[in-house]
């Protein structure tokens, strides 16, 4: 009796994206138009969601699904953008849409006359589109597209005050951690591809698993996927030991902190766990792991929240703690409770954040009438000592930041510094030479000794990683870093090329994206130099202050370089993964290492070149510590 409304589903990400394009048309001072484009883009979505919801109810709650456009197809494989919505999807859809809509209305006035008014609303739409894509994704590939959009927009929203130091620093910090989650998901996709012989839809997971004859290899593959999924979820939901990024993400206007980091972005790890439930539900150790992480997070985050002098940080940690509880609920299979919990927590925390500036006068007023001086703390006895130790642990935020640096970034830096014996320039020339030799080698593969040939993918993957690590520690000229990055990509291509028979069309697709980005980069550097602006990366140059358009162009080039969805590089990236055989874990690790670090290098390059405090000329400069 109902028309099939499923064809409306693709509109959900498309409408906000269309609104984004419309938003681009207006000048920053045309606040009304920008606002209306936003309101319409998200408002229509709400209507569509309601229509879909009604249909779903009348369909006896059979999940809605829609097979979207084919991204790429070969005789063996197909990657499509597919969507489906089930009950959990609706919970997330409604929460996300209603909250975003409310925040749009709130921000209309709140951001009035902000120099970044347009930027804010454009990011908001992109963010929302990414979020919706994740929620309605039917497979890992689609989810990953949304996931990447979310990551990038987070970077821009955290670094919204781009002419200041700390927001930019923290944006970089957060996006670096996000990169770990991104790479985990890429690995998940790769492993799932091999396990299920192609792209698998989430709804088919249970039946697919039931039909498989399980063996040790298959089970360990599932375990690997589970662990990687958990890693991605833990990072994105700021669980132990990655909690410290969340308060540092609260650098933008209060309204954006409220919605993204208080409510939506941070809960997305739950959805990922639910979607992949069939994979890990059967593995008790994984369930225990999820529960364990949840419990540890509950403890650590609550403790830090208790001793926080900053209100927004306190709310951030309370959010994290509640999400920890939700992890526990999920691990116990109580998905529906987790959904209620999510909705309540999302609205509670985002509202608490929105009105957090009120707390000053409210609590001072309360203190005026009700203050009782706390009892002095005692020093002696085990429990007092324990309490004080916990206090100290809380004030040091469980040493999260320190350990992240120590275990994640410092080793990379150390390797990079070890390469100091060779200058970047020499490395590039030497690298290019090696590349051409390698290229010749590709065409003459049959003549190469077999053992040597099998080793080549590894050698080039290692070379790729090395040039990147060099770039990672380099502080000098941007052009050198850019050169190292492109060299990395070239080596990667060779590595893949030696690993399997060369498919030129795929490689071309990949390289076309990379080379175009590379050229745009060169154009940008030349322009900056012409304008007499600094291009060395020893410090944040803040060139966006003078050249905002150039910054935008360069941002696009950077997205191309890291394989952001909708760039050709992205497709190439996905396809390349298909060319690494199952079981080639070492090669995969090396290549993933490259993909991880290239993200860090590119984001850093963009930030140092364009963001931060601009030092040239007579104008207002913020304090570095503010």
């Amino acid at each position, binding site marked *: 009796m109902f028309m099939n409304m499923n064809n409306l589903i693709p509109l959900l990400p498309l409408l906000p994206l269309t609104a984004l394009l419309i938003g681009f048309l207006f000048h920053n*001072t045309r*606040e009304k138009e920008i606002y209306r484009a936003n309101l319409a883009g998200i408002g229509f979505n709400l209507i569509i969601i309601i229509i879909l919801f009604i249909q779903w109810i009348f369909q006896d709650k059979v999940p809605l699904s829609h097979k979207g456009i084919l991204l790429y197809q070969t005789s063996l494989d197909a990657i499509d953008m597919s969507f489906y919505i089930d009950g959990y999807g609706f919970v997330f859809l409604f929460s996300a849409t*209603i909250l975003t809509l409310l925040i749009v209305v709130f*921000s209309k*006035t709140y951001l*009035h*006359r902000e120099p970044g008014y347009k930027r804010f609303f454009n990011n908001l739409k992109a963010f929302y589109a990414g979020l919706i894509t994740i929620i309605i994704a039917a497979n890992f590939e689609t989810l990953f597209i949304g996931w990447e959009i979310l990551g990038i927009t987070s970077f821009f929203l955290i670094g919204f005050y781009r002419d*200041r130091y*700390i*927001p930019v620093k*923290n944006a970089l910090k957060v996006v670096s951690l996000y990169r770990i989650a991104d790479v985990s998901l890429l690995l998940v996709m790769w492993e799932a591809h091999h396990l299920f012989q192609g792209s698998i839809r989430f709804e088919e997971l249970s039946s697919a698993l039931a039909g498989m004859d399980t063996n040790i290899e298959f089970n360990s593959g599932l375990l690997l996927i589970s662990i990687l999924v958990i890693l991605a979820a833990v990072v994105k939901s700021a669980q132990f030991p990655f909690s410290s990024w969340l308060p*540092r993400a*609260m650098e*933008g*206007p*209060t*309204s954006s902190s409220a919605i993204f980091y208080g409510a939506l972005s941070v809960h997305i790890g739950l959805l990922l766990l639910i979607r992949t439930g069939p994979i890990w539900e059967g593995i008790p150790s994984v369930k225990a792991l999820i529960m364990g992480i949840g419990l540890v997070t509950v403890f650590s985050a*609550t403790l830090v929240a208790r001793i*926080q*002098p900053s*209100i*927004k940080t*306190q709310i*951030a940690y309370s959010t994290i703690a*509640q999400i920890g509880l939700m992890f526990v609920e999920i691990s116990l299979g109580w998905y529906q409770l987790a959904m209620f919990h999510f909705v*309540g927590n999302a*609205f509670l925390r985002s509202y*608490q954040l929105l*009105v*957090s*500036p*009120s*707390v*000053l*006068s*409210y*609590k*001072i007023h309360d203190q*005026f*009438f009700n*203050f009782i001086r*706390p009892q*002095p703390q005692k*020093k*002696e006895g085990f429990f007092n*000592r324990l309490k*004080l130790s916990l206090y*100290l*642990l809380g*004030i040091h*935020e469980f040493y999260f*930041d320190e350990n992240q640096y120590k275990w994640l970034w410092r080793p990379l830096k150390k390797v990079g510094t070890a390469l100091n014996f060779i200058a970047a320039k020499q490395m590039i020339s030497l690298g290019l030479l090696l590349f051409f030799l390698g290229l010749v080698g590709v065409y003459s593969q049959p003549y190469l000794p077999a053992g040597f040939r099998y080793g080549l993918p590894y050698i080039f993957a290692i070379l790729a990683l090395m040039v990147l690590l060099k770039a990672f520690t380099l502080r000098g000229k941007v052009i050198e870093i850019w050169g190292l990055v492109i060299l990395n990509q070239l080596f990667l291509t060779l590595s893949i090329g030696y690993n399997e028979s060369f498919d030129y069309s795929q490689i071309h697709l990949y390289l076309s994206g990379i080379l175009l980005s590379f050229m745009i980069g060169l154009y940008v550097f030349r322009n900056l130099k012409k304008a007499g602006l600094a291009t060395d990366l020893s410090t944040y140059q803040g060139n966006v202050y003078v050249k905002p358009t150039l910054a935008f162009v360069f941002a696009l080039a950077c997205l191309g370089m890291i394989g952001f969805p909708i760039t050709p590089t992205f497709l190439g990236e996905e396809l390349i993964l298909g060319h690494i055989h199952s079981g080639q874990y070492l090669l995969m690790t090396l290549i993933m290492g490259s993909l991880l670090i290239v993200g860090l290098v590119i984001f850093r390059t963009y930030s140092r070149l364009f963001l931060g405090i601009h*030092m040239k000329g*007579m*104008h*207002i400069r*913020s*304090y570095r*510590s*503010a």
Partner: protein
Amino acid sequence: MQIQSFDENKVLDDLHHYLPSQLSLKDFVHHNPLHNFQHLSFFDAIFKASKNFGCQVTLSLEEYRSLYQDGRIRDEILSFIIADQYEETQVSNWRYNLLQKDYPYSFEPNIGGIRSFWKKVYQIDLDNHVHPLLFRYIGSFLDQGVALWHFPFEDNGLIQAIRDLDRSSFQGVFKSKRTRELLHQNHLSIKHLLDLVVGDPEAYSNYLLDQQFAHRGWSGLFAATESSPETLFYRKKSSLKDLILFELLMELDVLDSNLDKQWKPLGKAIQLPKIKYFENHHLTELETVLSIWQRAFEWDYYDEVLAGIQTAAKIPRKSSHKVSFQSVFCIDDRECSIRRHFEKVDKNCQTYGAPGFFGAAFYFQPQGGKFYEKNCPVPVTPKHLIKEYDVKDKQKHELLHHPRTHTVISGFFASLSIGLWAAVRMVYDLFFPKMRPDISNAFAHMNRYGQLKIENDSLDDLENGLQVGYTIEEMANVVEGILQGIGLTEDFAPIVYIIAHGSSSANNPHHGAHDCGACSGRPGAVNARVFAFMANHSKVRSILEDRGISIPSVTWFVGAMHDTASDEIAYYDLNDLNENSLRHHLENVPSIELALDFNAKERSRRFASINTNSDLKRIRKAIKNRSVSYFEPRPELGHGTNSICLVGNRETTKSLVLDRRAFLQSYDPFSDPKGIILAKILGPLPVVCGGINLEYYFSRMDVERMGAGTKLPHHVMGLVGVSNSSDGDLRPGLPLQMIENHDPVRLVMIIEQSPLIVENILNSTPSMKEWFSNEWIFLFALNPSDHSLHRYKGNQFYPYQTLKKIEAQKGDFIKQVERKDSMKTNHILDATKENLPVYVYEHE
């Protein structure tokens, strides 16, 4: 080896001297942020500050030139300013410099110079390592009640608390063993730590200045709470010395653990440059050019104001009608417009202006309050206490802010209960905003229906050294002081309103900056009520009668308060009015409401969200909504655009429209031939009005380094201040949303009195004279006998002829308001266009 002496006390003094002196945000009071430079003449001072702190203190050269192109700085003014300072032969040269010459600009502030060598020598970003943790420690130490666990051992000062914490915990505060041992040393001295960290005694002082100014917000608050501990309800024993010791230890710890053993003190590793901070600064040519432009920018407006004043003063006064009512307002610039509307709506009313504490300086204790609130100008130390009683309303709570939402189990239930309810609440607050317990309500400062203990029972009735209530004699002195000061000593109307002001706003940590500056940043309702009580007291009136001020028995004083954000007026103690007075009052209410409507309309022209041409009542409702909307960062615009202080008879300048830019102090020169009254009322004006003006000036010139930046990302820290981020420094000063419409010009004060008398007063009070002779405030005298203008320059008055002439016009000023668009952007070129020119309207 020659040992350079390092004077620890001198550095601590310097730091106390130069660090921002803003107290806890609840006690926000406007002051000159560069008050420590006030002994210098204005431009010497600000460029010296700029050289040291790296702050912008003027607009940029391009901006001035654009203002000139736009006609905002008239050419004749520019010529006048150059000619005013230079010989004729130099004029063309300076004109070239101002208009065409290119000047290179490099940004090299003194402070920060020494410590930057850490990065250069050891590639270590010390601040990045130290700041986040340090801020969390001192934030927790000063915290007033955000954290659920308070900082332990805070009674003993920071360092002792850290020691106890270190000793009693399992893991300890520091990583390196050396630091830990140093922490527990008996006579830990700054000097000793500097020996280890810096090693070059000549650089010690500068190093400490660098270090503390790298987080001037936190250090400033630490220093300020050291000298005024009462600014925190939950008192802490803060001392700057402790902070420095702790920071040096943290630096040492970071260096030890990150650079292994291979580092030497900075001054031993390289030869540190020998820069002298805070040396006397000679203006560079660029700075001179900027100072001339700034003068011209200011003078362009002053000249227009002065021309307006002269035109207005010459309009003959009307013969006096029967006065319908009188009202005494605060001198606040925001009351400038409401007074105009009062006078327009009821042509027979009279308005007066006096500092909004109305001469009654006291501490106020609301019923149930555990502390006192100071309701008078900051420099005054009150001897009286006013207590509230008989309040029936209960304190209201906001569940959303309950600390239990941050614990695990209650947090869980809160999510499932108030969390879901928050969704509904959000919709409601967005579309139907209304007053909530967490919105700062100006009318909640004192309960409207409670009672005040105003009359002292006996001189022994003391509380903490304060006398509870005023004696009759004291009351008479207060009332006499005010009435004489404003020149209201006869012809009393049946009702005299004493109208204080306050401001309601939502989601606004800076709400204190919107309240009454003369009441230490609080709503002045108590003061108005107390004054009205005093003036109505029969015994007071009989004393006044003896002193020559005869208040007829039909006259009744009514205390009231104007909410400058919501444009509402509340009246107090109406029950005390007799039938006759009540009838008079009720007759006035509709006029006052209409005046408020018009005031709202006039204010709305600067608000993009309100259509100034729509229905009066709708505008009024929209204005009211702004004051209770969480999403509105501009509930009102505060003192933005303030630039004038008029001291004189209201009748003289009644027909002058100064937008909302003037502080208006009433004063009758004819009743004060010797200037005795003038000397008294001038006292608080430079500090209050000049303080506000300069705070706006500097926050506008550099909203990042002197102001608090945009308020949108602000985190509330420990209920004492705001910062931009979780790991950020505190941000003293005014936020962008308050200052964006402000034209940064110094205050110009015009006194209606003969220049000779004013000069005499200044010569006898050097502290006041400094404001004018160093040009932190410009001063003019309007001679009441012939309306001639006199400019104060150097140390004396000179006659002044305005360059501009302004004609009086007929019609209705409100039409000008309807025509004016709000500014396109908040860049100075657009912002200055939003201001209205000076108008003079003849009496109808």
